[in-house]
């Protein structure tokens, strides 16, 4: 059995990628199982999805703790403890990261064990689709290549899964083409199925009762949400061209997260630690003084705090 774990942020398509991989394997006669896990259905929140592929019936259920292949749609998730990207990765695990960096660069900057390979899917999607969007088909195709599935079955799986999402035929076709381009472009490392993990009997833990005064979560701090930096959600960052800015305050007025403040001379100051990169300010700026720049990955994204 091959166990594949996908990590992404809500909206990137990790869940659909897992479905595409499962369906493609099924079309080739394998037994396949896929399931996603997420908290709230939210863009930007960490999402994981699990695909198991085998020749024989799969008895195992639930989360994949010892993956053979890990597909990471967003490198900024790696240091996020809530995303648990590193869980169960060892020397034999193949790790694919959607990143601008090469696998050597990633190795040099991170403590990731496993056999790394990277490809900048976001960039390919931007070039080919001309706008931001989900990269589910691309992730699914890349994962399919790693586990040795054929192009035709991936093409068919993409058609089935994206049609289920209500996408139009032209969009599906475009996705198929770009996905297979990625299938060819990625440098592969062969995925080896790990030794089956011994399964012990589960222990039942009885939760203890606490009265509401103790058992209810309480936060006794004011406005501490700023400790949580949402800047890692961005694919693009808004950048100010000061000469073009007429100081109209519209970007400040429309920013949902309140990360734009106005300086004394009426120029926007952007808090990049928290800006989620929605680009409302870029869309609404009447003088085009705010432009979107592709987020560059650097060493910072890799150090766990």
């Amino acid at each position, binding site marked *: 059995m091959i166990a594949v774990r996908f990590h992404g942020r809500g909206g990137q398509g990790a869940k659909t990628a897992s479905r595409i991989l499962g369906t493609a394997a099924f079309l080739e006669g394998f037994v396949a199982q896929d399931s996603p896990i997420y908290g709230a259905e939210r863009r930007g929140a960490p999402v994981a999805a699990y695909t198991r592929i085998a020749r024989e019936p799969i008895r195992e259920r639930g989360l994949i703790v010892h993956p053979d292949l890990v597909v990471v749609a967003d490198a900024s998730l790696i240091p996020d403890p809530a995303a648990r990207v590193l869980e169960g990765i060892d020397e034999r695990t193949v790790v694919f990261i959607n990143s601008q960096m090469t696998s050597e660069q990633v190795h040099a900057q991170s403590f990731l064990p496993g056999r790394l390979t990277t490809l900048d899917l976001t960039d390919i999607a931007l070039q080919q689709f001309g706008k931001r969007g989900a990269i589910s088909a691309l992730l699914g195709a890349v994962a399919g290549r790693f586990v040795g599935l054929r192009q035709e079955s991936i093409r068919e799986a993409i058609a089935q899964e994206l049609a289920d999402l209500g996408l139009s035929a032209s969009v599906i076709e475009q996705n198929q083409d770009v996905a297979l381009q990625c299938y060819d472009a990625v440098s592969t490392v062969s995925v080896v199925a790990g030794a089956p993990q011994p399964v012990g009997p589960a222990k039942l833990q009885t939760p203890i009762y606490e009265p509401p005064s103790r058992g209810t979560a309480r936060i006794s701090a004011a*406005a501490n949400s700023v400790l949580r930096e949402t800047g890692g959600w961005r694919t693009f960052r808004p950048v100010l061209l000061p000469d073009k800015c007429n100081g109209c305050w519209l970007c400040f007025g429309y920013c949902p997260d309140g990360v734009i403040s106005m300086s004394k001379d009426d120029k926007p100051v952007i808090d990049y630690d928290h800006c989620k990169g929605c680009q409302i300010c870029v869309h609404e700026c009447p003088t085009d003084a705010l432009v979107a720049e592709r987020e560059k990955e650097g060493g910072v994204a890799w150090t766990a705090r």
Partner: protein
Amino acid sequence: MWQRETFKKIKQIPREEHVLPGTSLCAGCGGLESLRLAAKVLGDDVVYVNAAGCFTMLATYPFTPFKGSWLYTTMASAPAGAQGVRDALDVLIAKGRLPRNENLKVVVLGGDGSTYDMALSSTSGAIYRGLDFYYFCYDNEAYGNTGMQLSAATPYGARTSTSPCSLQHPSASMQDKKDIFEIWRAHKPPYIATVAPRYPLDLEEKFARAVKFTGPKLFLALSACPTGWLYDPGETPEVAKLAVETGLWPLKEAINGAVIHTYIPKRKPVEDYLRLQGRFRHLFEPTRQDEAIRHIQERVDTYWKLVSG
């Protein structure tokens, strides 16, 4: 002709933030944008009583974006929670255990699932009892936090995860949006208003005007939703603007029941609004559903015909 008295220029929007960043609400959330602007008028001396919904994500343990208080309730019981908080404040002040100047505003935050469906009964009760509170509904026209299921606020023709476009139901959702404004108005609260995030001065003005009324004060905020309405997050103001400019989302207020429209749009065709969003794409592709589009346009036309008399 309705005129703004307090907020005339965009530079009058208070600089201080009262909903701080770091929440895990979606990038480009129209509901958060409306709340952020509202909080600039409401200030920090507030107890938010939050019904379960997308705004659950405002304060995920152990973080809160508020300097004031936040209390979490089930979807149907936020107005009842507000009653308890209001009563506690009143009793403590009356007994001298809380100084009068430490009084707080009680503000319910509810999504449309809560407001239009589940909490309708407790809201009706709270208005009936004349509870002195604010009700802020962020209306993104579906149960957003659980994956965009149909709610009573979903408009005709919108695709949600429980109202897919199918051969039996080509227009996707078949019901018209419930008119919660009129349901509230029938209860005769002192103040009701609709707001949209693309019209910040209109929004700020309405919250400023509501301060002087004691009793239920209700706000219905159009919360354009990139995640559920399927458009790019950067287009949230554009979508909110077209909702207003097409006449689909009238900006209005009702003081003691008397309705005034605070902005009269020139009324672009509804198609301009529908076309921007993936949830209406089936009305145009693969074949154009003229009948459905006409139905939506006619509803708007009828509404505004009644307004202009």
